[in-house]
């Protein structure tokens, strides 16, 4: 049984189709990354999974159950738009959210999480006395107390410093190790590549990518060359067999035309300038994202 099973779901707001005939399965125990440009339908999909929005058509099952009109105590949700009762004290607030979802005593769990995030000293402080980063961590704790079977995180890393982001990443992976299924949306392709067992990309309401990173990259083949040369991107301008150059500063990413031999490209580059490094690779998730959703995108390639 999948943790989440979305079947032919469509959601419209007036004339706008936010999610269009979407089907998706999120296996239990996995970390699933939702990617897509702003306004593509990620948050709407997440809100439908947690039942804040109801689909116009299609069905959504969580652990085999259709939840329409009810709430599951097994789902933890961290929305992108952060907000908590700012006049409440931290511990009282976390016990309120935990008690509301689980109905039991969550005092021990709250203490453990506060300790893990080094926030125990703030337990009796009001939320409006804490920094934004601290508040974000408190909101994460509110989403995971009591321990959920399905955790849905909308942009969990946005606005966090690297230390806090690492702490959060460790916590998410720890929850996964304990058996939780995690769905997270992110604009950071590195996070999606490094953390997620499966990746789903939605663009203009339609599913355009779905699968493991390996399976997604395989669809595009090894059409990418990463090269570091003297003179940078300017030295590579107009190379035969190259349809696009992405300048990353110290490294340039070249996308070859279909059927092009990398050896020909290497010879052409060596003929122009001094080469420090040269490797043939599959396109990165970032590159795939830009190919689908970049300014040149006209039609949506449905996955």
């Amino acid at each position, binding site marked *: 049984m999948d943790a989440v099973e979305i079947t032919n779901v469509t959601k419209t707001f007036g004339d706008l189709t936010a999610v269009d005939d979407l089907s998706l399965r999120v296996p239990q125990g996995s970390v699933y990354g939702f990617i897509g440009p702003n306004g593509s339908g990620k948050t709407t999909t997440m809100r439908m999974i947690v039942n804040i929005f109801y689909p116009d058509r299609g069905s959504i099952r969580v652990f085999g159950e259709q939840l329409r009109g009810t*709430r599951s105590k097994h789902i933890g949700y961290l929305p992108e738009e952060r907000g908590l009762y700012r006049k*409440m004290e931290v511990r009282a607030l976390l016990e309120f959210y935990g008690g509301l979802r689980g109905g039991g005593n969550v005092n021990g769990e709250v203490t453990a999480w506060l300790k893990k995030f080094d926030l125990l000293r703030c337990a009796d402080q009001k939320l409006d006395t804490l920094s934004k980063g601290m508040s974000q961590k408190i909101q994460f704790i509110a989403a995971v107390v009591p321990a959920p079977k399905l955790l*849905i995180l909308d942009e969990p890393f946005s606005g966090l410093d690297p230390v806090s982001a690492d702490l959060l990443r460790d916590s998410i992976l720890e929850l996964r190790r304990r058996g939780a299924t995690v769905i997270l949306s992110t604009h950071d392709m590195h996070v999606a590549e490094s953390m997620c067992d499966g990746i789903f990309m939605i663009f203009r309401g339609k599913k355009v990518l779905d699968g493991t990173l390996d399976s997604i990259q395989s669809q595009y083949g090894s059409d990418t060359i990463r090269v570091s040369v003297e003179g940078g991107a300017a030295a590579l301008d107009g190379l035969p067999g190259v349809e696009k150059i992405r300048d990353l500063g110290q490294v340039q990413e070249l996308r070859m035309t279909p059927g092009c031999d990398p050896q020909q490209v290497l010879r052409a580059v060596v003929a122009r300038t001094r080469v420090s490094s040269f490797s043939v690779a599959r396109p990165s998730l970032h590159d795939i994202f830009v190919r689908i959703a970049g300014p040149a995108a006209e039609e949506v390639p449905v996955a």
Partner: protein
Amino acid sequence: MHRIFWVARRDYLAVVKTKAFIIGLIVFPIVFGGAGMASVFLRGKGGEQNRRIVILDRSGAAAAAVAEAARQRNQEVLVDKDTGLQTNPRYEFQIVPADDTNPEQQRLALCDQLRRGELHGFLEIAPDALHPKSNPPPSIAYYAASGADLAQQWLSQAVNTGLRRARLAELGVPDDRARDVVETAPLESMALVARDPQVGTISKPHKRGPAEAVIPIALVMILFVIVMVSVAPVLSTVAEDKLQRVHEMLLAIATPVDLIGGKVLASVGVSLTSSVFYIIGGLLALEALAAFGFAPLNLLPWFFVYLVAEVTMLCAMGVALGATCSSAQEAQQLAMPLLAPVLVPIFLFGPILQQPSGPMATAVSLFPLFTPIAMLLRQSLPGGVPAWQPWVGLAGILIVVPLLTWAAARIFRIAILFQGQRPNAAQLLRWAIRG
């Protein structure tokens, strides 16, 4: 139900633990009770200053009679007959000969005295006031510093009594007979007599005291104030929570009905806390004033039923409307429409008091949104209402309250995450129907 109680507990404590609530709870009776007690205290202490009124008689024949009539009236109302204390200011009259050569100048001079505070007012009796030749007859002009001078009302009666006496004197009617003609009998407001259900005797007629008239209406006013105080903040609180993005996470944990149910329950709890405090305090005050017998104990169960119903209805609507707001100003603008169900019956107080069993009063009190205030007011008046009417009103409330709460929950679920332009009435209706 667990989630409703959990939300209610948080919201209730968030209100009652604030200093504003505790201070408001104490300040309200101090302000209203204190004002009443201060008024009684000051009246008992007397200290009313004498007020000088000039009579400028251009008819030449009415001034003395008018001054005499006013003096007599002065005596009648100056002192409270029960307490023997002066409860009204003493008016002193001074007859000034009319200057017919330059009446404008004389009028101006008197007005200047009035402006300097040397006079309280002056009466100018027209030349043909005794024998009016025009139709309508000339009015008696009264000049005072304030347009709301209370002396005006009783001076009208005193002056006309004086004029009638002057006319009777012209006709040769002796003064003692003239007094019989012009004397007016005071109108007393009496309490209804009733048959004692145990011994069968009919009670003696007695004057309706102020306590008897005011205390039942005070119960309606307490209901009105507590509803206002409990419901008005809901709009701004929900709007503020929306601005702080509190609800999305809550909506993933609890259904809109859970959240609205919790908020309504919290408001009902707050209103019951306030009302129990005020009613116990009021009963203790009546006991201390030896007026416990006037307490409308039979209406207290209805008071609490109406309170719960009104707060539930308005709070559910307040949560839904608050969810449509994107700023505190928008929430303030919606306060008046939200509170219309309590304000409309208050505006209709006068007509309901005049004809409590009339068709208008009956219809208003059976309209579910107005039932709590209007029906309680009618029930509190002598004679009450037919026994079936409160129950029919209650039936209407029991139908409307769940419907409104359900519709409010549907609006809330969509509106709370809706950003940008405020939805119009048609959109709200669509959300309520379609969800």
